[in-house]
């Protein structure tokens, strides 16, 4: 399962073609960037990969397996984790609980063990709490562990969502505009963490319309406009590409 591939996928909403015959590959251990102006179809692509929407045509493959048509929770259980463009935390729950719930796919105890409180259920709870505490240390947010997630600043809420996605210990991580609403310092710090994650073997899809951020952190960049792929390549190649400059950088 070293790659996640989209092969000629399209998505039509009625007469509107949001994504048209798009192919791209996300490799483990690398950061793949997907960039395009608002309304270019970036979030639609993430929604299709994660199983929230079914593609109208084309295939999504994880290694040799086809993913298209699999429901959301099954895609997640196979190790593909995502964040949302408009942060979606469990606002009533504490930061720590928000992260722990991400570990769901690693639960091994039965419903019965969890209902009756068998020792295995408590052991699992302790393991998950420790993992969540490690993530909080990595992001240097330990002091917020007990606070209700809904009360945090927007930038911190985004980080909690990334931590929740990481608690899944995914093979692939889809980040939908992770630095929107963050200042330069916060963004660069998150970028550095994402780079470390790629070094650890996670395949990252980074969706942004912040060109500078994408250029700095991505190994491979796909540029889309109106649902179509208009360029692909490394950062230096993209910054020289005439079509991209015309469509996106505005001359």
């Amino acid at each position: 399962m070293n790659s996640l591939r989209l092969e000629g996928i399209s998505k039509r909403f009625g007469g509107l073609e949001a994504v048209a015959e798009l192919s791209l590959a996300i490799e483990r251990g690398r950061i793949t960037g997907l960039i395009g102006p608002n309304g270019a179809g970036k979030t639609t692509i993430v929604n299709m990969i994660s199983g929230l929407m079914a593609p109208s045509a084309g295939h999504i493959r994880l290694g040799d397996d086809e993913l298209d048509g699999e429901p959301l929770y099954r895609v997640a259980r196979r190790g593909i984790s995502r964040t949302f463009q408009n942060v979606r935390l469990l606002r009533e729950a504490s930061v720590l609980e928000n992260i722990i719930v991400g570990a769901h796919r690693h639960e091994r105890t039965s419903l019965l063990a969890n209902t009756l409180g068998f020792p295995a259920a408590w052991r699992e709870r302790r393991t998950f709490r420790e993992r969540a505490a490690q993530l909080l240390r990595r992001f240097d947010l330990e002091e917020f562990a007990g606070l209700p997630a809904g009360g945090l600043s927007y930038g911190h809420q985004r980080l909690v969502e990334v931590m929740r996605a990481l608690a899944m210990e995914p093979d692939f991580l889809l980040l939908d505009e992770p630095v929107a609403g963050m200042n330069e310092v916060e963004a660069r710090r998150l970028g550095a963490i994402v780079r470390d994650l790629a070094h650890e073997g996670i395949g990252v899809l980074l969706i942004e319309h912040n060109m500078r951020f994408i250029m700095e952190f991505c190994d491979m960049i796909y540029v889309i406009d109106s649902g179509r792929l208009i360029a692909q390549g490394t950062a230096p190649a993209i910054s020289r590409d005439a079509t991209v400059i015309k469509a996106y950088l505005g001359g």
Partner: protein
Amino acid sequence: MSFILTYRPLFDLICIYTVLAYSQYVALRAGLFSLATPGFASIGGYAGAILLKETSLGPVLSAIGAILCGVAAGLILSLPLARLRGAFQSIATIGFVQIMVSLALYAQPLTGGPLGMNAIPKVAGTTVLVPILIVLAALLAVINRTGIGRAFDAIRQDYTVAMSLGISVSRYFRYAFALSGAIGALGGCLLAFNTYSIQPDVFGFPMLVLVIAAVILGGRSMVAGPLVGTAFLIILPELIRPLADARLLLQGLLLILVIIYLPQGIVDSLSHRWKLRRAGNGTRGAEGKGAHELPSA
């Protein structure tokens, strides 16, 4: 002493209706808009009473039989309803309650029809009810803390996020229906085993309003919530005697006031306030550091 004896039936009633409120609580906690509790209670009440009177199973096995009937009803109900959401679940479960009331009315040879079942031996007194309530509350507290509680919280607060974390929502809905069915049937069975007689209209609209009001008034997330809510709703009309006739009116008014002023219910609102106050004292120094920029690693 005479005071306690006088109010003992009231105390029993609080225990029984708290069990029923827990059936509703489990459903709401899981993000299930089920209003099926009186239906489950009806199944449990009649099943328990029939088993106790017509067979030689004895009270414990009869109660277990009643609970199993409740689980079966919950699972059957979940087949069509685990895929529905929100208002559709509510409407369908109200239909289920209506069907159960009609069944009790028309299956006269089995249920005694409109006159109900009478002369049920009183096998569940205070000394039986209290331990059952304690064990049940402990069980729910465990569920809240383990993986099931986490999954319930995620589903209730954001269905899509729960799915995106790998949680099979329909699996947990089935589980919640079964659990709500088991607890509801237990409550109905205890009602039959405590009050000598049951009639179809016991398991109708007033019970539905009472259990929902108890959970909303008391609180939807902590286990103590439904207990406080039930006690409040049962004791209040007794304290203010002239209001006893206007019980439903009073419940309705209370519900509206609570939703406006204590939207999380009595217990949860108080605990939330307490937590915030504690957090406010503990992290005031950290706030300035964390609010605007990320502390560097």
